């Protein structure tokens, strides 16, 4: 049987990095082929070779059994190969529809664009995806999750024979993931070959037919998904077994309150939010996409100050107008959008890790103690297993997951008393995820107060001592740790017009 795509002994080097070491990969028509591996294993690089973004240094690529040259993304598209890139490749100043149809605009005479048809076509795609999206909204104004939906819609619009999805669900919530899977199943039935990259193990189980695992730029093995247990795949990926721990809720009755938020609000995005957070506590925030969790975090952190309400830090009312104020008070915020809000991509790993703590490592003349920073950077690179040739590598050259680890390292080094992590494990592999969970638990044990916002319910459940749930800019309830998924979902979908009756755990309504 002729494979739809056959990649043979693909080799790719970057300065200082041997990213692909003779990797084989094949894709059949009508299958979902999961590509797994730790951060920096070479998954994205392999797929960029297949989609014409990179030219491999060695090996060959066959489509329908004949060797092809892929000198440009255009060439790949012409062969029916479409890709959703891990790092969103969108034009922020253009609208949703304009982004989707870029390069293939429906034209009228004189090079005019048929804007109406373009919008209608885009709307049709979103209708097919079961997503409510205005095709005329500028992409820059969307949250990262919704931008991800745009990327998916764009990839679907190509009607490709080969569809590569590089972590399409990293920013998505369970319900959106479910919608996406419906689409994927439909495409599979139509005979489309799909390469699916994800770090979410449960998804692999659910959607994939075959699984290929990569490690350190090498092909480890390809197995049938149906008869391979997840633990086996994990072992193939990380070379060891991982044990999954359950959350243990510590007794915090005598602990001091670190942060208290009262009646916080801003316009319609955030309404009358109140909660408190104790030292040593991990408070999880759950909610659907657009519930306002990010907005809340940004409001507390002073990135976009609230219109009303009080924030009390360590028992004292605080006035937080800028992030600098927040950090001075010992509050740190790890953004969900690392590319735009987390990293100075053109700077090296060391500088990024130090970015929030520089003055601490400088003398009175402002001289930076580079030696010490180097030691620290290497320490974090080791502890978080950041895959980089050295600590002076530019961050933009790291794989997505490794970039995320750099942002985490930045906030760990800053050593804040109150830490807000917004989607901290986005794009991070299972091994490293376990490591980060352990780190968060340790921090809590040291008496730090931690907020974790996550769209992955298992993550919220695995970490949180208490679980706050938001819906449409309101805090609909706070559940105790270990609550069931159903309880959370009930609160997450509690619309404003439905009277608030059910409460679980302590809820502050003001």
């Amino acid at each position, binding site marked *: 049987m002729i494979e739809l795509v056959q990649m043979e002994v693909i080799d790719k080097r970057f300065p200082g990095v041997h990213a692909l070491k003779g990797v084989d990969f094949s894709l059949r028509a009508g299958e979902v082929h999961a590509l797994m591996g730790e951060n920096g294993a070479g998954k994205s690089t392999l797929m960029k070779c297949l989609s014409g973004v990179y030219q491999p240094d060695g090996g060959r690529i066959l489509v329908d059994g004949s060797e092809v040259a892929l000198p440009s*993304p255009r060439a790949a598209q012409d062969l029916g190969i479409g890709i959703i*890139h891990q790092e969103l*490749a969108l034009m922020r100043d*253009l609208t949703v529809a*304009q982004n989707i149809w*870029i*390069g293939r605009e429906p034209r009228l005479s004189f*090079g005019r*664009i048929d804007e109406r048809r373009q919008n209608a076509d885009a709307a049709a795609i979103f209708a097919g995806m079961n997503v409510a999206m205005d095709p*005329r909204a500028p992409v820059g104004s969307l949250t990262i999750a919704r931008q991800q939906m745009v990327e998916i819609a764009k990839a679907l619009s190509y009607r490709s024979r080969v569809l590569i999805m590089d972590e399409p669900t990293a920013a998505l919530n369970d319900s959106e993931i479910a919608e996406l899977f419906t689409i994927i199943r439909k495409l599979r039935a139509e005979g489309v070959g799909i390469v699916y990259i994800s770090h979410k193990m449960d998804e692999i189980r659910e959607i994939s037919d075959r699984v290929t695992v990569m490690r350190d730029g090498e092909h480890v093995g390809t197995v049938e998904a149906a008869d391979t247990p997840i633990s086996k795949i994990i072992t193939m990926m990380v070379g060891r077994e991982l044990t999954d721990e359950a959350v243990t809720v510590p007794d915090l009755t005598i602990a001091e309150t670190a942060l208290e938020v009262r009646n916080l609000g801003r316009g319609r995005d955030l309404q009358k939010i109140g909660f408190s957070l104790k030292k040593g506590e991990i408070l999880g925030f759950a909610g659907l996409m657009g519930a306002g969790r990010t907005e809340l975090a940004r409001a507390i952190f002073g990135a976009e100050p609230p219109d009303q309400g009080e924030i009390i830090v360590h028992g004292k009312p605080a006035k937080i107008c800028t992030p600098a104020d927040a950090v001075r008070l010992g509050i740190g915020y790890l953004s969900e959008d690392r590319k735009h809000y987390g990293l100075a991509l053109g700077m090296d790993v060391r500088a990024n890790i130090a970015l929030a703590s520089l003055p601490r490592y400088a003398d009175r003349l402002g001289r930076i103690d580079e030696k010490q920073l180097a030691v620290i950077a290497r320490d974090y690179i080791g502890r978080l297993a950041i895959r980089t040739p050295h600590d002076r590598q530019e961050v933009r050259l790291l794989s997505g997951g490794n970039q995320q680890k750099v942002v985490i390292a930045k906030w760990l080094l800053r050593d804040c008393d109150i830490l807000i992590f917004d989607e901290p494990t986005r794009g991070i592999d299972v091994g490293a995820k376990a490591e980060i969970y352990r780190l968060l638990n340790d921090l809590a044990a040291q008496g730090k107060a931690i907020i974790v916002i996550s769209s992955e319910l298992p993550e919220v459940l695995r970490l949180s001592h208490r679980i706050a749930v938001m819906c449409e800019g309101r805090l609909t309830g706070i559940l105790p740790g270990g609550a069931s998924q159903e309880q959370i979902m009930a609160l997450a979908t509690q619309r404003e017009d439905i009277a608030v009756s059910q409460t679980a755990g302590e809820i502050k309504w003001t």
Partner: protein
Amino acid sequence: MDLKQARRGAAQQKLLAFASLIVLIVGFSLASPNFFQVSNIMAILQATSVNGVLAIGVTLIIITGGIDLSIGTLMTFCAVMTGVVLTWAGMPLPVGVLTAIATGAICGLISGTFVAKMKIPPFIATLGMMLMLKGLSLIVTGTRPIYFNDTPGFTTIAQGSLIGRLVPAFPVPNGVLILFIVAGLVAWILGRTVLGRYTFALGSNEEAVRLSGVNTDAWKMAIYALAGGICGIAGLLIASRLNSAQPALGLGYELEAIAAVVIGGTSLAGGRGTVLGTLIGALIMSVLTNGLRVMSVAPEWQTVVTGAIIVIAVYADQLRRGKVG
């Protein structure tokens, strides 16, 4: 619903962008009775025409995230080539018009090739062009102006008034008419056509456009060529106004045009911008210069006041957009 609100907001914003301009006009009218006279208003419009056309051309390039420093000397070079064709070779007027536009487009294409194919930063590519064209204009003309005395009707290109013939009360010079036609055309291109779409897309995220399979290099070159052609029109206008091609002219015009673009709200980072904004920016600058002159402000104070008002106008704009807390 939300979208409608947003649209209404945007429209209001555009209307408000006139605010600084209106304030200036009202202020000067109150300060001097000679300011708000038909002939002076026409003089202001006429003074806007060349800078306005240049600014519209460079708006295109700035939206792609680039910059063009050669527009001033390119304008001159186009004027010179027109002089060569019309006065020295004695060709008929339409050939001269075509020469100006073609010269501009070709030089723009060369700049575009430097930028797109040779990956030379736009600043350097067009700085090089600026110097080369400056020298070439002097070399071609032998450093002397070329006069258009032998081409009847040449001065009417900018100085005549088609509108004035129809409506004698509004003797809008043709140069201004041409400015508005160019503005309309470019606004249409930007808003409705594929070229315009790619202009914005390139400035927004060039890599993403390339990854979408678009031949970004070719489009970029097309945009530079278009901008060059527009500089050619500016060359015609200035030549017609001065009834001569002045080979030493042009240096410094790029700064003025870029200033008009930026005052008009287009970001030098690329990805956004409007022709209307540029037009308003250019008008603000010429109203300011003319008004201060009519008020007989001492020239050294004119510069100070111009600088201050530019800063204030843009600050007001930022306040309005809610960018400043």
